[in-house]
């Protein structure tokens, strides 16, 4: 037993030494892990083949409810950079993963931790007191900000700067890739804006509050939600109110995310003569939607078609 005590002491000394020891410098390819596929796509645009990028969540799953599986730890433990959406979107699953990763580089506050929300325009920041009677509100603002291409560009710029910090040798390369990306995005935006132009000012309802940035960019007016409150499933009384609102205002379009049950939206559609549009909130929501550009291509094609059909 004496021996066990001295072993303990040795272990403690070892821990102290370990805390002070500098981490070994690395000269290999940077490894970037993002929480969502959209951030992975933006990082890919910036980094080209200089960086390995991988997302934790799948594009077709609800980003609020990802399971913190140990297999994610395998990805995180060697990461040089972790990019998160922030604004508490990942609060239910990311913190324990970071803690258990055994990777000091990606802890909050360390150089390898990047909260992308700092670069983006954030909507729906609650003013005043917040409590859960409002449902699962995000006290820091709506985290679905990547669905505005302007925010995509801003976040990409932030990522380019961060990658340059971590890999100063390729800093110019990342900046040049960012410029190229911004130019291509501006071109694409012109096309998307033109396609959406006839429908500016249209009123729509959405399932969850995933679309304020998208709606703002393309001039849509979100007037109701199928969820009575964020995170609370539809209730009959709220659904009736919503149906009345849609009839009164002649609203035909319901946007829903692919991970929500379409039963209630479908019955609302049949009562109002409206149309359910399953829009993708993230890259990878469908196999063919492989990058940030294709995400908007896909969503806008669906939405404009739906607008035409419900004229």
């Amino acid at each position: 037993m004496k021996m066990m005590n001295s072993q303990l002491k040795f272990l403690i000394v070892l821990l102290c030494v370990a805390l002070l020891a500098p981490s070994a410098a690395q000269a290999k390819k940077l490894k970037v892990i993002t929480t969502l596929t959209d951030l992975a796509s933006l990082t890919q645009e910036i980094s080209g083949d200089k960086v390995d990028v991988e997302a934790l969540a799948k594009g077709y799953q609800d980003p609020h409810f990802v399971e913190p599986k140990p297999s994610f730890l395998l990805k995180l433990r060697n990461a040089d950079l972790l990019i998160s959406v922030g604004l508490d979107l990942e609060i239910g699953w990311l913190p324990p993963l970071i803690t258990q990763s055994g990777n000091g580089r990606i802890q909050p506050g360390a150089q390898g931790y990047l909260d992308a929300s700092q670069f983006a325009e954030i909507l729906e920041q609650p003013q005043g007191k917040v409590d859960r009677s409002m449902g699962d509100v995000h006290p820091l603002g709506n985290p679905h900000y990547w669905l505005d291409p302007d925010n995509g560009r801003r976040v990409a710029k932030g990522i380019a700067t961060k990658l340059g910090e971590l890999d100063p040798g390729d800093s110019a390369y990342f900046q040049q890739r960012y410029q190229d990306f911004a130019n291509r995005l501006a071109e694409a935006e012109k096309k998307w804006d033109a396609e959406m132009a006839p429908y500016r000012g249209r009123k729509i309802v959405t399932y969850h509050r995933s679309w304020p940035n998208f709606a703002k960019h393309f001039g849509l007016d979100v007037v109701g939600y199928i969820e009575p409150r964020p995170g609370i499933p539809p209730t009959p009384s709220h659904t009736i109110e919503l149906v009345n609102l849609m009839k009164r205002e002649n609203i035909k379009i319901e946007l829903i995310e692919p991970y929500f049950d379409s039963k209630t939206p479908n019955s609302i559609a049949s009562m109002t003569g409206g149309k359910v549009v399953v829009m993708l909130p993230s890259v990878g929501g469908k196999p063919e939607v492989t990058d940030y550009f294709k995400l908007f291509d896909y969503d806008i094609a669906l939405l404009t078609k739906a607008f035409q059909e419900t004229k």
Partner: protein
Amino acid sequence: MKRILNLFIVVALASSALMAQQQQPSAADVAALMQKVRDLEDRVVILEGQLRQVKAQQQPAQPTATAPATAANAPATQPQVTTEQGAAGATQGAETVRLGGAGGAAAKALNPDISVIGDFIGSAGHNPNEPTPSFQMHESEIGLQAIVDPYARADFFISFGEEGVNLEEGFITFTALPKGFVAKAGKMRAAFGKVNTLHNHVLPWVDRPLVTRNLVGGEDGIDDAGISVQHIIPAPKNWFVEFTGQGFRGDSSDVFRASNKNDLSTVGHLRVFKDITDNSNIDLGASYSRGHNTFGTDFLTNLYGVDATWRWKPLQRSIYRSFVARSEFIWRQQDQPAVLSCQLLTCPGAALGVQRAFGYYASADYQFARRWFFGGRFDHSDRATNAALADKGGALVLTYWPSEFAQVRGQYRITRYAEHFDAHEGFIQLQFALGAHGAHPF
């Protein structure tokens, strides 16, 4: 700051517009102008982002003692200084006011995340072996969690039961150790199997399995002060393999007792995990624990356990459907005075003084709607000090979540005790959470 910027943009736009009117702009001019507006917009957004961060970091540092002095000056219509307008107003003078309750996340940035989880249980039925009151505020657990510094975080869980207060867990986690080590020090639930690591409010049942109650210290389990080191072991083909080694003082419920200072207890746990598909995975564990027991320094208890969990959750419908099947097998070998064994048993010769008890549970839980779960559990366990006696049981559980932060659960439990009588019990449990949105354990 934001107001000034917005003003600046408006002026810039207006003046450009005026000039444009005078000169009949070409398409190139308009494009350049648009580009300029976009750049300015980007700068505003970046400044807003920085403002959010500054607000989150700086403001709580102001001493609250200044509040009473300036409260009278504060505009009554604007009690909360986290709004955009409030932040703009803050630049007018350092003496901003923040009144209690308001303020959102920024005001509390450096406070730990605080949560309270209430656990209320009502029970019906008769059970002379393990009587439960008709109603009980079983537990009120307070969680305080925060990052300590760039090298560590800390977590405290203080549980107020009906009879007293207990530090359920309180430990620091060193997150920035080299070579991928994660170390903890403090009081913590030992990494022995699955159920022992879980707090009451994340169990899929109202109670804990018989094998936990009989062999692994019941509700408190192996929960002790000590240190823990864990490390992920590299393995091929995306197998996750992790080893955890823990050393404790040696005091845990009726499992371990340190009669003198050197009676430490140890726990070793090996966890293996693999994604089978995107929707399903297996989680296997092997555990060992050793320590001195309640009979004194010379009497050891050894615990061995294996656990297996299979999970299924279709990712695209992850909030509506899931299935978890889990089982744990536990062996307990306990030294005890031969006299005691002779009193209890009929002195079976060779087994004198050592009890070898075995128990297990097998459970399954199916989520059949967004808020509904149905599950069952089968129990079997010998008794620790007299392994010749075995209890059996089973339970059916129905759980409803009004929201993510509240849970109502009904459980029917039948237990067939070794003394040859059955106890039929019904439980209703209400759990509710306040405060920080804690992550669910996996």
